[in-house]
């Protein structure tokens, strides 16, 4: 591979507080050789590829901590190839895949399969997570140590929550030994049983059973109590309500160490968007009130929430063309994660640096992977974005195999132009 000189870009790397005009050099192995204002048009050798980025923004490739792939078992919803295409078109170069496949990713042999498929069929970095408990049944913990040695970066039951407090306490106690990262989807199943959308005026009007925000809050409170006794690497996958934010703030003030994520959907949509029973907006955690949404945005600003995820969950038409209560939960989002996040920058809710940190270095740090920054020596995983480019979401133009985007027809500002993975140009918008 020839060396590449990317010049004339606005380089933003939150890890190093970098936001300046300059360039980036990719060496012949696909690693970052140099970055910053010193890389200019003036000092380029003759036999390299020169790419003029025309003052567009260059950021580290995005790290998406919560993505569902259909392999194995649900290839008709999404396979590694289609996921990879969707991710690259969204500037996402690394994803954490959820273990809710068929069969569930809960043993060492499955990990080999995943890694092989991920490597052969996709161009992005797949960091698989494994189930916290066997078959995500919430009973028997999986082999954290052995799985981690095989390359599992995190443990989660994905769409499920470990309900039994004794099992959860033991998991947290045991996980510290292998320094495994535990990621919890916080929802008390008994509290939320039969629930479909946020409990409130909208659920009363639509006649849909509500999911109280208490169902989320009490699991977070429970787990944070355990954390006091059984310290481990603990991450709350995604929160949805103001009530939970106050629990997290309090715990952080008490000095507890853990991290928190939020889905871009909960930052940019609210329960009113469900309208006339739109099943693409049936999500977990559910969309809540505008007040909740604003509190979540504020929590990104003040550092209460560390990470924004796409919660990319492809579902085929047959799973969504049903009555609201029969329809499957989830929406696609990996391709629109950055553009939708940029809304929060354009409407002056969140600073650009903070926003980019929450989808690059923050998740990388939590996962303990060498991604999400433009440091010398790192893989050249890069995303070039025109942060002002207007466009309209059209589900047929999105690359995911499933078309269940929750933001069809939404007007966006900011589009990905190029994506590099390990120094190779893997996506370019024409």
């Amino acid at each position, binding site marked *: 591979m020839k060396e590449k000189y990317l010049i004339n870009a606005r380089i933003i790397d939150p890890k190093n507080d970098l936001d300046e005009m300059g360039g980036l050099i990719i060496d012949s192995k696909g690693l970052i050789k140099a970055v910053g204002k010193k890389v200019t048009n003036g000092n380029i050798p003759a036999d390299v590829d020169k790419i003029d980025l025309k003052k567009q923004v260059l950021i580290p490739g995005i790290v998406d901590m919560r993505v569902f792939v259909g392999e194995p078992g649900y290839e008709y919803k999404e396979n590694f190839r289609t996921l990879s295409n969707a991710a690259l078109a969204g500037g996402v170069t690394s994803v954490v895949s959820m273990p809710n496949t068929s069969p569930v990713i809960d043993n060492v042999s499955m990990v080999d399969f995943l890694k092989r498929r991920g490597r052969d069929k996709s161009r992005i970095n797949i960091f698989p997570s494994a189930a916290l408990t066997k078959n995500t049944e919430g009973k028997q913990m999986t082999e954290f140590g052995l799985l981690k040695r095989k390359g599992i970066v995190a443990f989660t039951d994905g769409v499920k929550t470990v309900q039994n407090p004794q099992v959860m306490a033991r998991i947290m106690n045991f996980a510290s030994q292998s320094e495994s990262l535990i990621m919890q989807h916080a929802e008390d199943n008994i509290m939320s049983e039969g629930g479909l959308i946020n409990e409130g005026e909208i659920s009363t*009007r639509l*006649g849909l059973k*509500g999911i109280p925000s208490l169902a989320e809050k009490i699991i977070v409170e429970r787990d944070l109590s355990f954390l006091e006794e059984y310290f481990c690497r603990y991450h709350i996958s995604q929160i949805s309500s103001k009530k939970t934010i106050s629990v997290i703030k309090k715990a952080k003030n008490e000095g507890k160490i853990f991290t928190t994520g939020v889905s871009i959907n909960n930052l940019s949509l609210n329960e009113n968007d469900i309208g006339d029973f739109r099943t693409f907006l049936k999500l977990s955690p559910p969309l809540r009130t505008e007040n909740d949404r604003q509190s979540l945005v504020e929590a990104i600003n003040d550092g209460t929430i560390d990470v924004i995820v796409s919660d990319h969950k492809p579902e085929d038409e047959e799973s969504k063309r049903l009555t*609201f209560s*029969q329809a499957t939960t989830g929406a696609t989002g990996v391709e629109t994660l950055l553009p939708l996040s940029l809304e929060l920058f354009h409407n002056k809710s969140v600073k650009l640096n903070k926003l980019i940190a929450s989808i690059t270095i923050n998740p990388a740090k939590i996962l303990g992977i060498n991604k999400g920054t433009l440091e010398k020596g790192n893989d050249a995983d890069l995303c070039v974005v025109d942060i002002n480019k207007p466009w309209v979401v059209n589900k047929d133009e999105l690359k995911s195999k499933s078309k269940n985007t929750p933001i069809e027809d939404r007007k966006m500002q900011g589009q990905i132009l190029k994506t590099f993975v390990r120094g190779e140009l893997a996506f370019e918008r024409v």
Partner: protein
Amino acid sequence: MAAIKKLKAVKIEQNHLLGIQDISYSQVSEILNQAKAFITLNRSDSKKIDILRGKTQINLFFEPSTRTQSSFELAGKRLGADVMSMNIVNSAIKKGETLIDTAMTLNAMHPDIIVIRHQDSGAPNLLSQKVNCAVINAGDGIREHPTQALLDALTIINRKGKVEGLKIAICGDILHSRVARSNIYLMNMLGAEINVVAPKTLLPHSIERLGVKAFTDMKKGLENCDIVMMLRLQNERMHGSFLPSAREYYEYFGLTPDKLKKANKDALIMHPGPMNRGVEIDTNLADDINRSLIKEQVELGVAVRMACLKIFCKRN
């Protein structure tokens, strides 16, 4: 500076009767006025006319129903329509066919109107997007039961002359009641003042936002009321830990002569049926011909459904 163009209020007439929330005051008036005419017809010797001759009405009931289904069936027949009631128990839906596929199949038979009852809220809305005929909601989940509310309004108007200015108490399991929701929307639209009375576990979240006052003390909730609407307490609620027992419920929320004294002297009692005597209502009160409108509700139900069939059939 360019002048801001004033938008004219455009009235969109609904082609379907999906819920009271979705129809206008003038549509409600049209239905009620038309229904009044049918009351007389229904009481006459020759009850059948032919304004829907050649039209096909399909009743699609996914939930068991006695009075609503027979009421719709009779209504269609009296207007001269060909009425077909689908027996869901033996149908393809039990074999896993989706609602949309069922809709497509029925649509191919060119019905003029489909009457649907479904256990899922919003099912009639989904159906209406997929068929070319009018859809009438005969009850969906815990969302709406518009024809029940319309027949209740007609019954009240028949006795009291109007709904406007009346004070109406809706009592019982509000949380699981589509009848309560439709009545709240309709009686509000017609200018009544509404109290809802229920234990806290059976009151929906943010119910006051629908324009009602909520009471957990039945005597307070019934004060100066002109109409007392009782709701059926489904027995399974007693075991879902919403309530301790039927006995406790009757003590605090059952309609008894003692509690009824708090309402106006000429207050009338309504119930959408079927009743649980001795659970939500004292058996003598239920049969008191001077107070109870229960039989009248059933009678006028047919007239209201005839009016709905006529109006919405015509529109398509």
